[in-house]
């Protein structure tokens, strides 16, 4: 046992250095199976979020092996951590729509126009958690991505990315955590050092100060509660390639901005169409 605090710190530093030396944080140090898994997971968010770890032991609960992504369920006291729900078909569709832009016609794609997704959802549908983990997948497996995650206040948005993104990352297999080099600090930004991507937690007024300099995609959680939804759309649309708004209907108070927006997009249709919005 070290006799003094300074000796303890010295030994701890040495230990960390040795641990860093031994840790396989170089891609070449991955086994071929791990490399295959990474290649497989890069293909789609669904493949990653419902994937299983290499050589993991099959159990009665997980016959295919240990799931890679675990999320927090605050309502369940007995089993607060659960694997990503692979049985939800709508979640697979949602992730495909948003991250592969399947909802849009192919010829539409343009770097200069933001694709807006207005998602209205029932409560407790796992939509925010699913999409935030999709964002985490995109940042981990794709280079130079930047996502802004907006809630009413910065504290709320930091709490959101901590619960929905950092917690699942902390349950990734250790080798994957080391490989992706996700920085534990600062609290408001999750940096994926290997890909150079980042998720930034921002308050709802971020568009007024950030958009002029920063480019990135935007995730607006509980959009109908954000008074400044109009400003977010207006300011970020020229900068973002995707704006994803999620929310449960609200009428009155701050929800009026979202009400107006949903009315606006709901009723608009192609001049030639007589059936309103098109199902794709």
């Amino acid at each position, binding site marked *: 046992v070290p006799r003094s605090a300074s000796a303890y710190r010295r030994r701890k530093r040495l230990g960390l250095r040795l641990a860093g030396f031994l840790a396989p944080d170089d891609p070449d140090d991955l086994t071929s199976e791990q490399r295959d898994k990474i290649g497989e997971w890069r293909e789609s968010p669904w493949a990653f979020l419902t994937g299983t770890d290499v050589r993991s032991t099959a159990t009665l609960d997980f016959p295919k092996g240990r799931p890679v992504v675990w999320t927090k369920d605050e309502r369940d006291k007995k089993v607060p951590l659960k694997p990503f729900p692979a049985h939800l078909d709508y979640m697979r569709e949602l992730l495909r729509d948003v991250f592969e832009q399947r909802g849009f016609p192919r010829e539409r794609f343009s770097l200069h126009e933001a694709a807006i997704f207005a998602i209205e959802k029932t409560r407790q549908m796992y939509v925010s958690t699913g999409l935030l983990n999709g964002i985490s997948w995109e940042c981990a497996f794709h280079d130079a991505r930047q996502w802004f995650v907006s809630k009413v206040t910065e504290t709320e948005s930091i709490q959101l990315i901590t619960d929905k993104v950092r917690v699942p990352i902390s349950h990734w297999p250790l080798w994957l955590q080391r490989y992706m080099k996700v920085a534990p600090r600062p609290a408001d930004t999750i940096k994926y050092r290997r890909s150079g991507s980042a998720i930034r937690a921002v308050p709802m007024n971020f568009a007024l100060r950030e958009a002029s300099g920063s480019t990135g995609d935007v995730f607006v959680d509980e959009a109908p509660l954000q008074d400044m939804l109009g400003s977010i759309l207006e300011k970020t649309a020229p900068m973002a390639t995707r704006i994803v708004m999620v929310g449960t*209907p609200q009428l009155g108070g701050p929800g009026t*901005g979202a009400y107006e927006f949903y009315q606006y997009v709901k009723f608009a249709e192609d001049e030639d169409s007589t059936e*309103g919005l098109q199902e794709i």
Partner: protein
Amino acid sequence: MSRAPAIEGYSRRYNPLKDCVVIRVHYRADPAKRDPRWIAGVKKRSPSHHAYLREYELDWSSPAGNPFYDTFAADPAKYVHPLKQLISAPVYRAWDFGYRHPAVVFFQVSQSKRLWVIRECMPAGIDSHSFRDLILYLSGQVEYDALVRRPRALEWLAELGRMRKVDETWRAIPEPPWFGQSTQFVDVSGPEATKISATVATESKEKSDAEILASGGINLQMTWQRIEDGENIIRRLLLDAPDGLPGMLIDPACPLLIGGMKGGIAFPKPTKAVPIPVKPHKDGFFENLHDCLRYGVVASVPVTEDGEIARPQTVVLGDRRIVQVYPGQAGKEVGFYENEKDLWK
């Protein structure tokens, strides 16, 4: 474009005009939540039926928070009645100005002082000249050709046409123009538009809006009651009249005003500075229609039920004291006293 396999409770619609995808995730998308027992549990736990409709059935017309007109929100169907034909009385047009959401509410007042709200118009991002001409066209006072130089007015009319095609709620709005050429109109607005300011600092943009209206033949009337009375009058009109119907009825052709009265016009969240809010939330949307309605009622309906307003009369007594006396209070002095001793007489 490939069609994705249908999943119950999950729908995706692309809006090519706005380049936006609207995705709807209903609880039925999750097989575990299709169980009637789950739905029953959710209904039981929801604080109100409105909350259940809003949060689980994705109903955008159920209010969140506290509706400003809770009487209306409690039973909206009671107040929504189609007006089959116009009353033989002028049609009031209550105006609220602004570039983002100018608004006009059309209404009539019957002999029994019942307010019939007939139509509404609230375009977005439109200049005052175009808005004026749009309202004149909707009122049947100018021909469609008069809008040729007003592209924003034409856009709104086109949008109205689209809304009427795709949504049942908006189908209740008839094809414009809404009124015949013989209809008489009375135009009212807030005091900003008509009052003359003593200083530049207190001048308002609404004053020039009123001049723009005047150049098109629309002369705004002065209101004869305080605008603050509007809320009281509306609350009184929401009460039942002797014939059993409420004092205010709204035609289904006013979907936005109905949405506002149902809860779109709401109290703001309490803050430290204002722990018990008494004024509605300034949302930049419903508030404009609300203002129109307030301006309209103060110009057309008395604040008291019988229409009589007790106003104090100033009387100069023989000893040159100035006092204020209410009618029916003969001999009782109310108001200003010359000195403190008078208070104890």
